[in-house]
């Protein structure tokens, strides 16, 4: 059985914090096909168009018939663990820091033999289920767990490197004055977060959501205004070295188009909160989180931005809001690249319209904030890079992949 995660102790101030190191980072272009599948939580491998052979590792031509038409297809993630070993030595700094490390060969039901990182409960000759995960360097790897989930599976120290269960981790939620902020806080507490820090801007504005957050256990509220550089700096200096998961749920949505509604002030506010706000958070929380990514099983691990699916395609009914979300998405890609160097994963959740006061006149289907919060937690637990939430967001992604010009012309609220 998986060793239960020992309750995090307070940090010994006389001990040096381990410097982050990364697993081997080089991948071929073909191998990044796995990364794309892992990002959205799919278990897909290359399949030959001609002979239907499932390929692993990814390659340019079929290992059976040399055909170069290989395409990615979701395949059965089951298999049998053929052999397992415990790595006791490595020349690689990342694994040296973490040995012993379990690896095994799985005979996949889909065909190929796959070298996988093993959960503690996997037993030789027994059935396992595999997932495509993303490691701390940002690359896809295959992990295996027993076919049936085991009791303490989520405590597995090795698998925690690739997934971000809030259990025993300390979480910062940037905006506690929205219902989504409240629901994320509630679900983080329910998921066993060790401490939940919640930001609150403009103290003179009351918020029923923030009032409810005050009653949650292990939760504390801090002054945080992402439009104010000093405010972000101040909070980072107070709790930056304790934040292990950062959830940036900054939100400022105003409806309206572009040509018929010239409103620089609204556009400015949206950019200030979504784009410059992310910049400020990155500037002050980023460096300290990067330094703490190897600080034991509870070290800093993930940064999650809550974005709108309209970051991917501009909705003319939300013209400047969509543009500010696209700007934030672009910045998040840079953040991912820079934080990867420190072993911190950057995840983006893309939501469809949410049931709230600012989207009151948006037609259904709309997401209940609690649903969004639960999907965010699940996405963290699964270590997904892109968490697509709700039917609208899913449809947007599918239509962009199918024909971006079509959706560009037809999308509206």
């Amino acid at each position, binding site marked *: 059985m998986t060793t239960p995660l020992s309750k995090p102790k307070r940090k010994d101030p006389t001990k040096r914090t381990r410097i982050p190191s990364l697993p081997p980072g080089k991948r071929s272009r073909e191998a990044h096909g796995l990364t794309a599948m892992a990002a959205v939580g799919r278990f897909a491998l290359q399949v030959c168009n001609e002979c239907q052979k499932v390929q692993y590792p990814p390659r340019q031509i079929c290992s059976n018939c040399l055909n170069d038409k290989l395409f990615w297809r979701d395949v059965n993630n089951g298999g049998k663990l053929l052999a397992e070993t415990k790595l006791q030595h490595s020349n690689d700094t990342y694994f040296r820091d973490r040995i012993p490390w379990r690896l095994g060969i799985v005979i996949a039901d889909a065909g190929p033999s796959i070298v996988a990182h093993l959960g503690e409960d996997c037993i030789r000759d027994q059935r396992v289920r595999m997932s495509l995960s993303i490691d701390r360097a940002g690359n896809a790897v295959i992990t295996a767990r027993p076919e049936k989930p085991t009791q303490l599976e989520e405590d597995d120290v090795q698998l925690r490197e690739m997934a971000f269960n809030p259990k025993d981790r300390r979480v910062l939620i940037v905006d506690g004055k929205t219902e989504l902020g409240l629901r994320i806080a509630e679900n983080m507490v329910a998921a066993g977060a060790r401490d939940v820090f919640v930001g609150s801007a403009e*103290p*003179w504005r009351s918020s029923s959501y923030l009032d409810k957050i005050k009653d949650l256990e292990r939760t504390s509220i801090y002054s945080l205004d992402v439009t*104010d550089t*000093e405010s972000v700096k101040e909070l980072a200096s107070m709790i930056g070295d304790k934040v292990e998961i950062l959830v940036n749920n900054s939100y400022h949505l105003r409806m309206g188009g572009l040509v018929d509604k010239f409103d620089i002030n609204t556009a400015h506010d949206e950019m200030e909160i979504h784009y410059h706000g992310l910049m400020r958070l990155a500037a002050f929380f980023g460096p300290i989180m990067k330094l703490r990514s190897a600080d034991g099983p509870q070290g800093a691990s993930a940064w999650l931005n809550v974005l709108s699916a309209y970051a991917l395609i501009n909705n003319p009914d939300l013209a400047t809001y969509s543009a500010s979300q696209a700007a934030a998405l672009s910045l998040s890609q840079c953040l991912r690249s820079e934080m990867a160097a420190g072993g911190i994963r950057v995840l983006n959740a893309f939501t469809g319209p949410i049931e709230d006061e600012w989207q009151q006149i948006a037609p259904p289907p709309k997401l209940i904030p609690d649903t969004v919060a639960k999907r965010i937690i699940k996405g963290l637990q699964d270590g997904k890079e892109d968490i697509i939430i709700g039917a609208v967001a899913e449809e947007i992604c599918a239509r962009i992949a199918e024909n971006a010009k079509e959706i560009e012309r037809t999308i509206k609220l």
Partner: protein
Amino acid sequence: MHNENKKPTQLLELVTAITRGNIKVIDLTMTLDRKVPTIVLPPELGQSWPFRMEEISKYNEKGPATYWNNFSCGEHTGTHFDAPIHWISGKDLPNNSTDTIEPEKFIAHACVVDCCREAEKNPDYLLTIDDVCSWEKTYGKIPPRSWLLMRTDWSMKKTPEEYLNLDDEGAHTPGPHEELIPWLIDERDVIGFGCEDVGTDAGQASNFKTPMPCHHLMHGRGRFGLPALTNLDKLPAQGTVIITPPLKIRQGSGSPVRVLALIEE
């Protein structure tokens, strides 16, 4: 034309009196920083930017020898000057914006009515004609072209929450009664009205019969506003001169202003 032979004795006397401390200079200005609260409006309306500052350089690679900042804020941030063009009632008046108001209007006498006890008891306290008449019985009539400054010690509130004092029916801060404003203009010819809270009107003034009377009526008659003052407790009831030049913004509706008061010791 200047008369080269004539020495400006009165001005020299003024400067000498300031140097010797016979005339004291009191700063009535709130320090502008990121925590200065701006007026809170319904969120669907246009919003005034809060005061924000970003460093340009601080003796570093962006400017080895220089320290300076960019700042941004709405025209009506911190201690500020309200020009008549700020309100629809004053939009067509001549010389109604910060760039066109005659500069001599930026130096004027000020009367200070102490309402701190009343405001402490009742945050919605309204200054009435009777209150001002009874003040005049003690301190003398308000001279024409004076400011009327309402002292409430509101600027001493410790937090932005206490200062703005909002609940689910809006702000609760003191201000002038709607009947006082036309009386101050017609009977006393004041140059404007100043106070210590975030706006010259009371927190609940949008519910008055004439909504926002200090803005609507004062600006409609070419008078000014001077909210978010501090240190009014250091001023005498009569005899203060205040200096209030806003930034010369073309068509500016107001601007943050450094308000200086001169008082005789």
